[in-house]
């Protein structure tokens, strides 16, 4: 329920931002149904507004959503007995929220519960998110002077707020600072779209220069703690399930065998 409420609030804000960037309701609906990824959709609003060419948008979307590889690999042993076609559909609905809920649910049960996955993915996330994003872009048209109401600040504020949940170690902090700094400098010298791309690619490389022993990583990518960090802020308040220690090792399928 908490996740659904969070999805509604965040989805509505996304719809408002998308409208500001010139998205139509049908385009927002297409994004929500086909992409179904809050951070990537929010980022796409910024890319489109800044005039970034489509290949750049697609590249950055691929990078931003690549973390799902880890969630997918971690869930694979639990869902291996499901039919291939069903797993293919489950994959499209795999989000930070769906992973965080279902992996904790499976562990508590000690077995797979496909209905639990569908509930986490569709009822708690997909339906509220999609409807709220469309509501945001439709109802945003009723607002006469958006700048006076500060709607233009929602996008950059949402981006920086989303990044807070991802700062789970020193490498992430370095990546964010370098990414932002390089992005601004390159944007001033060239253009905002180029700055965003260069910042987004150089930042992680800078973060990797921090030695692993000094990184103090608290939520390795692919873990439930990481999913909580990426999921809609407010849904989990950034804390892992009680049975999920923050310093757990990187989740791998062979460490996730159903009991």
């Amino acid at each position: 329920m908490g996740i659904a409420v969070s999805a509604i609030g965040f989805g509505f804000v996304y719809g408002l931002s998308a409208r500001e960037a010139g998205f139509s309701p049908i385009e927002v609906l297409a994004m929500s149904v086909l992409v179904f990824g809050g951070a990537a959709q929010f980022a796409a609003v910024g890319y489109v507004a800044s005039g970034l060419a489509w290949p750049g948008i697609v590249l950055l979307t691929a990078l931003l959503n690549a973390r799902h590889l880890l969630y997918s690999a971690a869930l694979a042993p639990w869902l291996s007995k499901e039919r291939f076609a069903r797993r293919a559909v489950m994959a499209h609905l795999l989000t930070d929220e769906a992973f965080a809920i279902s992996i904790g649910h499976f562990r508590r049960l000690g077995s797979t519960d496909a209905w639990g996955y569908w509930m986490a993915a569709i009822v708690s996330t997909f339906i509220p998110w999609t409807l709220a994003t469309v509501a945001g872009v439709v109802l945003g048209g009723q607002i006469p002077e958006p700048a006076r109401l500060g709607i233009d600040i929602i996008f950059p504020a949402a981006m920086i707020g989303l990044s807070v949940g991802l700062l789970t170690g020193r490498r992430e902090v370095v990546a964010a600072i370098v990414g932002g700094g390089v992005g601004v400098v390159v944007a001033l010298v060239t253009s905002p779209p180029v700055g965003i791309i260069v910042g987004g690619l150089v930042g992680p490389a800078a973060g990797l220069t921090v030695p692993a022993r000094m990184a103090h990583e608290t939520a390795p990518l692919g873990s439930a703690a990481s999913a909580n960090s990426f999921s809609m802020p407010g849904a989990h308040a950034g804390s892992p399930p009680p049975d999920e220690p923050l310093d757990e090792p990187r989740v791998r399928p062979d460490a996730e065998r159903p009991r």
Partner: protein
Amino acid sequence: MSTDLIPLAFLMFLVTYPSRALGLLTPWLDRLPRVGFDYLQLVGPAILAALAAVSVMVVVSDDGVPAFHIGIEWVAVLACLGVTAWRRNLLMGLIVAVAIVVVARNLGFAEIPS
């Protein structure tokens, strides 16, 4: 009603779905090199920070020349950062950011962007 961005949404789906499906549909995905995993971990913060920073610090004039911008937007974004980090709730941070901008603009302390 514009449908120009629907193909873009489809392309974004095409690059997103494999990362969601490969692990579930193939068993070898966890063999990626460690440095690849580590790089992926850092992509999110870097891109989001770049987007936020460029959005509030760079404005493009009518003739297409980027320029450095200082304004109330900095205060709002920093306030959102602080509140979100403190309360672990982005919606609360957004409300504070919007409130700062609304008050500043409507009281004449900040320019209303065109």
